[in-house]
């Protein structure tokens, strides 16, 4: 069955603020492959609006291959956005969810298809609490920040996972793959 994969960047101390985590060419390539291997990505409004930045690179490519490739991959993948306030996602490949996150995920899992990515802190926490994340791909960047948005702050209980493998990037980032036990 297709997997629900939580994929997100983290600091060593467990924060996921986009503002402190920068990705290099190699990490962009990694995420491009991840997007190309999936067929849906789920976003909350905040992360979605940050990701809309990549639309500008579709119109005006940066000339940097890994960024432009990533822009094409994120443009292409169907996106489902969970928001109570957004009226129009303003991106052809995106649509607003009209059901709860739980209903959407359970329905997607029943259908045939490739893996489904979850790219927002709020959705990762909600789905963790519903025990619906099959795999976590946590990319830990070599930085400590002290304060910020803690990814797992709002989980209901401690979440015990099973380590699958790790992958090291040249920047010193390490990708930790875990699955639900």
């Amino acid at each position: 069955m297709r997997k629900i994969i939580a994929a997100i960047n983290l600091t060593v101390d467990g924060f996921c603020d986009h503002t402190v985590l920068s990705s290099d060419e190699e990490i962009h390539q990694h995420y491009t492959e991840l997007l190309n291997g999936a067929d849906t990505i789920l976003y909350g409004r905040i992360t979605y609006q940050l990701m809309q930045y990549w639309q500008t690179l579709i119109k005006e490519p940066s000339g940097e291959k890994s960024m432009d490739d990533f822009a094409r991959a994120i443009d292409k993948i169907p996106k489902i956005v969970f928001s109570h306030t957004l009226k129009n996602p303003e991106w052809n490949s995106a649509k607003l969810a009209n059901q709860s996150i739980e209903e959407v995920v359970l329905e997607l899992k029943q259908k045939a298809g490739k893996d489904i990515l979850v790219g927002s802190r709020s959705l990762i926490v909600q789905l963790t609490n519903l025990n619906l994340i099959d795999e976590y791909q946590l990319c830990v960047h070599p930085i400590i920040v002290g304060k910020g948005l803690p990814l797992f702050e709002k989980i209901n209980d401690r979440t015990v996972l099973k380590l699958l493998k790790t992958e090291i990037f040249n920047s010193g980032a390490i990708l930790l793959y875990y699955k639900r036990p």
Partner: protein
Amino acid sequence: MRRLKLETQVSIDGFIAGNSGNTDWMIWNWGPDWTWDEELQKYHTELTKSADCIFLSRQMAEEGFNAHWQKVTEDPLDTRFSFAKHITDTHKIVFSRTIDRSTQIPGGWDNTEIADGDFVDVVEQVKRKDGKDIIVYGGSTFAATLIKAGLIDEFHLLVNPVALGQGLPIFNTIDIKQNMKLIKAKSYTCGIVLLHYNAN
């Protein structure tokens, strides 16, 4: 110069203990059975043996760090014997302004001195002396103080496959973000990932 190494177990989200100081979530609860992941145990023992000085917080001294390891050395067949013997034979420094050698601590003050001066000065002095490296294991407040002052040279984090949500942090006191250099990453059969970073 001697390097100050922090070795500690952490959760995926960077806590070294639960809110009440609980460590029941750790795969390796530092209990008596050290045969469950020999490779990791070997790493831990070798790291400890690279140091000939241990920094302790007052709390760890009062909670019985010395007594605990002395007891293990009474049984040469204990799987922790070699590690414990090294710990008891190693020079230890307790950082505190509130206790002195007349204070009773479990296990007593053998090989253990008290540093009551400015801790930054003391740490820097100790680092300048000849010797092998220095190791510190926690607790959370003490480790956080050393991290904030930029005194830790190497971080050896044993990342458990658990997210806690909340707990005791060690990185929360830093004022500005700090880049680190990944030196080594290794996953062990038990599910722990060792992340060795050097401070930049």
